């Protein structure tokens, strides 16, 4: 059952890719291929010969939106503004498309610059289980797309009980500090979380800034904690909860806990969900004069 859906989506990607490239509508397709050890990895297709290497299954965890800006620029598409034709096609799940919306809102990309091969998403797998955040997901069809691959699956979303966040909240401040110290202690500062994140596109990250040097280079918990807390804050109202960061983390730090906490507070304070609509500014980029906020 699951395999049929995957094959249908994969075939859809190939058929569309073939057509887009042969008609010259796009110069690059961002998709997935199978790596030498069998794992799925990102792939860039520039000509029709590469099309048959494109694959898709429910372990394609990378959020390909991280590559979009670079590929659009490489195809000669300028920054947002003007209306160049679609130049890059991207395979995108509903959460990935919300990340595109974040970039579009922030002026990093124009809608016309991407051709979205949207996936009607059955949820991603970790081993043989559907990942927890996918089971909770209510969005099976992307908010926008140029082609929809697969049938919108009839899956009842699990209720989100926020148990994981509540367990941390139930601790005292000192215990929470200790909890996070223990988690961040493992961080090797590889920044894979940042590199895997479509929202982290700064050319110069505060983590590498040397003047002023906000974070030291020491391999100590305070520096690591500083980085992760600031990164979570920079993603406030922007994180689309694709879990690419947590997937990329070689040390299994529960990064999504930070992002989920933030997403819930953003929802509670400002009634906002990241990436739902490119025309609605994220909560920290706007304000209402008359609002009452707990300080």
């Amino acid at each position, binding site marked *: 059952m699951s395999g049929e859906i995957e094959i249908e989506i994969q075939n859809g990607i190939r058929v569309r890719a073939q057509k887009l490239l042969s008609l010259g509508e796009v110069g690059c397709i961002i998709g997935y291929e199978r790596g030498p050890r069998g794992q799925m990895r990102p792939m860039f297709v520039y000509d029709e010969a590469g099309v048959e290497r494109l694959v898709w299954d429910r372990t394609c965890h990378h959020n390909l939106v991280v590559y979009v800006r670079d590929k659009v620029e490489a195809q000669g598409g300028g920054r947002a503004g003007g209306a160049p034709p679609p130049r890059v096609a991207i395979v995108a799940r509903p959460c990935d498309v919300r990340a595109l919306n974040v970039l579009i809102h922030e002026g990093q990309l124009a809608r016309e610059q991407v051709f979205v091969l949207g996936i009607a998403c059955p949820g991603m797998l970790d081993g043989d289980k559907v990942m*927890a955040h996918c089971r909770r997901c209510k969005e099976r069809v992307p908010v926008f797309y140029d082609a929809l691959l697969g049938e919108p699956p009839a899956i009842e979303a699990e209720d989100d009980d926020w148990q994981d966040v509540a367990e941390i*909240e139930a*601790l005292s401040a000192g215990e929470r*500090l200790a909890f996070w110290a223990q988690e961040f202690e493992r961080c090797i500062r590889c920044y894979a979380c940042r590199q895997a994140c479509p929202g982290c596109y700064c050319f110069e990250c505060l983590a590498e800034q040397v003047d002023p040097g906000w974070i030291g280079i020491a391999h100590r918990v305070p520096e690591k904690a500083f980085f992760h807390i600031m990164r979570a*804050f920079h993603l406030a109202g922007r994180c689309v909860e694709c879990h690419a960061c947590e997937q990329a983390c070689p040390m299994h730090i*529960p990064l999504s806990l930070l992002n989920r906490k933030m997403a819930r507070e953003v929802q509670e*304070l400002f009634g906002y969900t990241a990436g739902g609509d490119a025309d609605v500014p994220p909560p920290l980029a706007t304000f209402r004069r008359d609002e009452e906020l*707990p*300080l």
Partner: protein
Amino acid sequence: MDTDFEPKIVGFLCNWCSYAGADMAGTSRVRYPANIRIIRVPCSGRVDPLYVLKAFQEGADGVLVAGCHPGDCHYGDGNYHARRRYALMHRFLDFVGIDAGRLRIDWVSAAEGNRFAQVVAELTDEVRRLGPWQGLGNGRASTAQEAAQREVTAALEGRDR
């Protein structure tokens, strides 16, 4: 409680209202705790959350961010942005183990010398009550807490990703 504990508090005050309010407290000879170290900034909207976290990382026991009352910002809307940012940051810092009581956001106008003194006194009392800040990433749990933490960690490891 450590009775010798004198909290170190970093205050980010906007140039146009709160800094002048602190000045007013001084010229009016209003007493307030000497625990606060004041940093003058152009606007409360200029206070990047980075600065607040940096203060905590460098060992501040408490942080005050003060600006013009909503509607009175010299630049029109800087404090509205600050208000949103810190409403969120408050909750988030608490989640990572920095007591919400260690951070205070408030509005002090240039005429409110007494109010400035009161805000500083309240924050100092609160931070004194909370005790010395352990430092980012330096949280050390008691044995009982450690046991509780092991349970949480175990539960997290058992959860599906």
